[in-house]
């Protein structure tokens, strides 16, 4: 094996592939449904939009809230079904493309971690779709998806360290600003001020403490980068020095993102969770990853046994999948968000496509069809729960209404606030705002009459 080929052909423990696909797609579904959809109302407001690239501005119309939401809802659904498996490569590739299109459509979404997730989704398409029974074994698997994920992560942390090496970061000024630091004794201390005060008590100066925090952050970034760079060979070429450096990188990632989440330092949605789980899956020793697949394999074997004994014939999984497509289309009408119906119809069509593909090899595809049908049914249920039984509809409408009110579009704001009020969780009523807008509209009408 040549040096150029070695990074891509080195085998790794199957549990890493098993967990990467399950966790990445589940987290993505949660991210899309519970976090990103609530911001969808800003698309198309005022007819103004700038895409990430001029080419997209030239080719695509101004994105609407309906279109954007349909893209997010459908992508979340596909991610959920892929997490449960089976995960055909063409569908994984399609998800990477739809997710990427969702953020590329508009500079409204310029979170750098969305760009990172696009890379991760693209590489995930090349990760072997390992089942739980295989994941618990010690027979190593190959595929360039995991090595590329490690390289991408190493590049990200390396450049993040470079960005933090600039003078303002090194001096600690940026960290002070991020953590909302206040002088010692001030009534509302910042997130790291307790630690700062403790170190100042030990005799260090305030400036030195912040410099120390900043330099420690940079060191953490590069330690994590090194860990990822060495990680993909950990299982095939075990060596104490490599295991130590990779584990050190893992601990650095867990402490950095764990602390950031604990103190809410960065406030960027689920980003810390993505990075924490990535570190656990790619940097932890493989023996830490196998106990759960054993349990999943046991449950899956029991379920498969029960399903095969209760199935009335070869048609059962196909019928279940056909019914799932029908239920999916109907569920779209119960989700009170723009784009939900279009997404549901599109997803029902996708389900039928997957059914048609499975029907081409009915015997080999029977178990696969059972898993697809179960995945579709569960994804439909969780999509409905996420988009109707949480604060998502309320947050979507109150955010949109608030923006319309600020822009002076009071009539639209009023009707949108009324929708928000319909889904308001206890204690978050917008009744007072609705009355305020009604009064403003009444005053406007009186002025016009005069």
């Amino acid at each position: 094996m040549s040096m150029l080929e070695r990074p891509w052909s080195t085998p790794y423990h199957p549990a890493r592939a098993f967990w990467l696909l399950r966790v990445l797609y589940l987290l993505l579904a949660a991210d899309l449904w519970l976090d990103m959809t609530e911001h969808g109302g800003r698309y198309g407001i005022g007819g103004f939009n700038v895409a990430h690239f001029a080419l997209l501005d030239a080719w695509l119309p101004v994105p609407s809230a309906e279109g954007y939401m349909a893209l997010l809802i459908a992508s979340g659904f596909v991610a959920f079904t892929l997490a449960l498996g089976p995960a055909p490569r063409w569908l994984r590739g399609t998800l990477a493309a739809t997710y990427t299109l969702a953020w590329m459509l508009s500079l409204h979404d310029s979170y750098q971690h969305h760009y990172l997730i696009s890379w991760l989704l693209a590489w995930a398409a090349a990760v072997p779709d390992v089942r739980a029974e295989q994941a618990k074994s010690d027979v190593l698997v190959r595929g360039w998806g995991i090595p590329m994920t490690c390289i991408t992560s190493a590049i990200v942390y390396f450049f993040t360290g470079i960005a933090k090496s600039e003078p303002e970061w090194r001096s600690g000024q940026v960290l002070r600003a991020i953590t909302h630091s206040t002088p010692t004794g001030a009534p509302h201390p910042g997130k790291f001020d307790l630690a700062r005060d403790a170190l100042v008590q030990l005799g260090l100066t305030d400036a030195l403490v912040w410099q120390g925090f900043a330099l420690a952050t940079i060191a953490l970034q590069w330690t994590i980068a090194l860990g990822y760079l060495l990680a993909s060979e950990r299982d095939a070429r075990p060596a104490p020095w490599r295991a130590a450096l990779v584990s050190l990188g893992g601990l650095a990632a867990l402490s950095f993102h764990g602390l950031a989440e604990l103190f809410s330092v960065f406030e960027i949605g689920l980003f810390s969770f993505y990075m924490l789980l990535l570190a656990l899956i790619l940097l932890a020793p493989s023996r830490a990853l196998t106990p759960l697949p054993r349990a999943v394999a046991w449950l899956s074997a029991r379920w498969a046994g029960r399903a095969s004994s209760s199935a009335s014939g070869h048609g059962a999984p196909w019928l279940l999948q056909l019914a799932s497509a029908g239920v999916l289309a109907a569920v779209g009408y119960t989700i009170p968000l723009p784009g939900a119906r279009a997404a549901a119809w599109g997803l029902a069509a996708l389900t039928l496509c997957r059914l048609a593909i499975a029907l081409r090899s009915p015997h080999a595809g029977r178990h696969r069809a059972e898993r697809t049908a179960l995945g579709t049914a569960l994804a439909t249920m969780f999509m409905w729960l996420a988009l109707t039984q949480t604060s998502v509809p309320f947050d979507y409408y109150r955010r949109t209404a608030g923006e319309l009110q600020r822009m002076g579009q009071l009539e639209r704001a009023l009707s949108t606030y009324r929708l928000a009020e319909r889904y308001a969780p206890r204690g978050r009523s917008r009744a007072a705002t609705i009355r305020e807008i009604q009064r403003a509209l009444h005053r406007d009408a009186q002025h016009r009459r005069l």
Partner: protein
Amino acid sequence: VRDRVLRWLWLLVVLQVAVPASYYLLRDDRDDERFAWRMFSSVRLTRCAIAAFDEADGAPRRVAVDLPKVLHAGWLRSLERGRARVIEHFLASRCRAPQVAYGVLERRCQTPSGKALPPASYRYDCRRRALESAP
């Protein structure tokens, strides 16, 4: 791994390094940190105030644009952050108003340590459909 695939994989690695490296080596626009893995950088935490104006040909005074009324808060943040393409699109959109010959945006920024940066001014010529001046 086949040779052709191998070449593509290494090309992808080079691309992943080249894109963020280009921020430091090639790009003039320091405000555009997209794709450079500069989360929570000093540039990102720079605080800016913006003001926009419509100018008519030969008119003695320019008219201030009520920005919160014409743009979503997300776009205002993009203008504050100096996103060049958003600035250009926004100023171009001002040309749709009658008698506007130039769209102007002024931006004043302060670094996280409180240091004021030189003010930046962008002027869009509606007839030529181009940014006439930018920092």
